[in-house]
């Protein structure tokens, strides 16, 4: 049991957690750095404590400062939000050692899923498909050919020590595997003084599909369907939606069942997300698991009518999970991450004072934000300033509302990614749902440069 939750985060997610606390009658404690004294999470929490100077390492990333804040306020639980210490198993352990309820998974599961190879092994054991690949470095070209035949073409050969595309070869034809292997090995040797290569099946133009999970820590687990996060730039998600234009009810059921089984196999507790790559023929492969609430959780909340952050608190309080059959999907939701960045200048961060802030409204519009008119966006933290979430009866209606809401969302004083979102919405590829994880990089860079903020 607990009654007072310390929110070890800042920005919109801190406010989101504080709202959930208020909705179920829990007290909340905000912590803040001196740069965030005027932030809304400080204003709307029941109590607040200044924990340090602006650098994250001395405030939001300092277990000592956060635990001290819990001690002086008598908080008896900690919600980490996302980012900062949310997936830090040591911090979770420290909270438990100080008799604070950790609103998240068991520290050992954070560790397990944070380790790529262990996570992969766990998933294979639970019957979840992973991207087929060599178990460590490939001995020689003949071995590479054998593996390529086994996995099926195309395959990707990558330097173990790699980076920047060097020592990397995409092989489409089995006849070229050995030559590609020798060349990549020489390249890797020259670039990294290490010619070791590994080989994995290449997924061409995949979609990023993730499954939202909630576990009770006793082997029970339910899923809330998928989110499609294929609209991303350099692994930074820009737009997320649910349902995915590429996932039908049968595939949703199959992915959801696979993910819940895997999470249940480790008696996972709390909110988590399994990320998959989905290829064009409908095969999905496990990538990684995020052991926390995610930025894009609201799209799932909109289509399932659930409150996932409230549910995190309830799970930690020992409440029962909803039944899978009661989790129903209705309508379509899209989220645009509004960042204080200048897309026309390589998405350069744009901190500063917000001189105009007009939030969109009307049917089907939700905005999660900690920003207000006159707020000074500090330069110390990530550039997310708002999440615009729209809901419609179907994708067409959601797209129309999204465009309408973005055009009403007026921000002056700083650059934002709102104009870039409008450009993305205007592409035929996004409108028809025909995108993949590299699509924005391949097709939008020019438009980003051209579309200087008016």
């Amino acid at each position, binding site marked *: 049991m607990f009654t007072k939750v310390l929110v070890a985060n800042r920005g919109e997610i801190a406010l989101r957690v504080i709202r959930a606390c208020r909705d179920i009658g829990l007290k909340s404690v905000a912590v803040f*750095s*001196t*740069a965030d*004294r*005027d932030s*809304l999470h*400080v*204003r709307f*929490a*029941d*109590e*607040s*404590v*200044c*924990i*340090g*100077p*602006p650098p994250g390492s001395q*405030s939001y990333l300092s*277990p*000592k*400062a956060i*635990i*001290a*804040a819990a*001690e*002086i*306020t008598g908080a008896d639980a900690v919600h980490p939000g996302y980012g900062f210490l949310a997936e830090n198993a040591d911090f979770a352990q*420290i909270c438990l050692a*100080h008799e604070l309820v950790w609103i998240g998974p068991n520290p050992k599961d954070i560790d397990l899923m944070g380790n790529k190879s262990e996570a992969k092994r766990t998933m294979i054991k639970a019957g979840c498909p992973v991207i087929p690949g060599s178990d460590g470095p490939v001995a020689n070209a003949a071995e590479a050919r054998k593996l390529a035949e086994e996995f099926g073409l195309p395959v990707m050969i990558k330097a173990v020590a790699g980076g920047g595309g060097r020592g990397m070869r995409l092989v489409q034809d089995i006849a070229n595997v050995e030559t590609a292997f020798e060349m990549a090995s020489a390249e890797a040797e020259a670039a990294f003084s290490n010619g070791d290569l590994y080989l994995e099946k290449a997924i061409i133009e995949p979609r990023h599909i993730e499954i939202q999970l909630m576990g009770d820590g006793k082997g029970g687990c339910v899923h809330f369907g998928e989110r499609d996060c294929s609209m991303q730039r350099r692994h930074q998600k820009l737009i997320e939606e649910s349902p995915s234009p590429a996932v039908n009810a049968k595939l949703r059921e199959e992915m959801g069942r696979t993910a819940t089984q895997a999470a249940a196999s480790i008696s996972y507790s709390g909110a988590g997300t399994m990320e998959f790559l989905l290829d064009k023929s409908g095969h999905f492969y496990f990538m990684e698991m995020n052991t926390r609430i995610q930025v894009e959780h609201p799209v799932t909340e909109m289509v399932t009518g659930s409150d996932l952050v409230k549910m995190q608190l309830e799970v930690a309080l020992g409440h029962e999970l909803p039944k899978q059959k009661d989790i129903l999907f209705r309508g379509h939701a899209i989220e645009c991450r509004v960042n204080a960045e200048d897309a026309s200048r390589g998405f350069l961060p744009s901190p500063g004072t917000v001189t105009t802030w*007009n939030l969109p409204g009307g049917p089907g519009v939700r905005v999660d934000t900690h920003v*207000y*008119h*006159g*707020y000074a966006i500090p330069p110390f933290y990530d550039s997310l300033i708002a999440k615009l979430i729209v809901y419609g009866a179907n994708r067409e209606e959601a797209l129309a509302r999204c465009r309408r809401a973005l055009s009403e969302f007026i921000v002056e004083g700083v650059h934002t990614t709102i104009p870039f979102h409008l450009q993305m919405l205007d592409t035929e590829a996004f409108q028809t749902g025909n995108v993949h994880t590299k699509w924005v990089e391949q097709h939008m860079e020019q438009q980003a440069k051209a579309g200087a903020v008016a």
Partner: protein
Amino acid sequence: MSAPQLQAMPQLGYAPQMPAVPQMQQAAPATVPESRPTPPTNTVEIKAPMVGTFYRAPSPDAESYVRVGDVIEPGRVLCIIEAMKLMNEIEAEIKGRIVDIVAENALPVEFGQVMFQWTNVHKSSRCQSR
């Protein structure tokens, strides 16, 4: 549309000394620009370098580390701030005289909260973990 009034509004009921306006961004007492000669009567605020519980003495029965009127040499322990069950001794960095002890014994201090009023001080206190 007018801006919401979002002045810092401390909600820690037990920290009555909290100023109603945002404090300085750093613990360093930068209120006095270095270019201006400091009148000897000027006081400077020594602020908490960390969040925790403020103690004036090493134990409940012991003497306080410092008292009003004491002239403090650099390196002298001023107080303890307890965080995560650790007693962190807070030392003076340079010479000065204590004119007021603002923080209350055994009560919480936030980062940047004023602990002492001081004269003839040019640098902040620093914290050392014991």
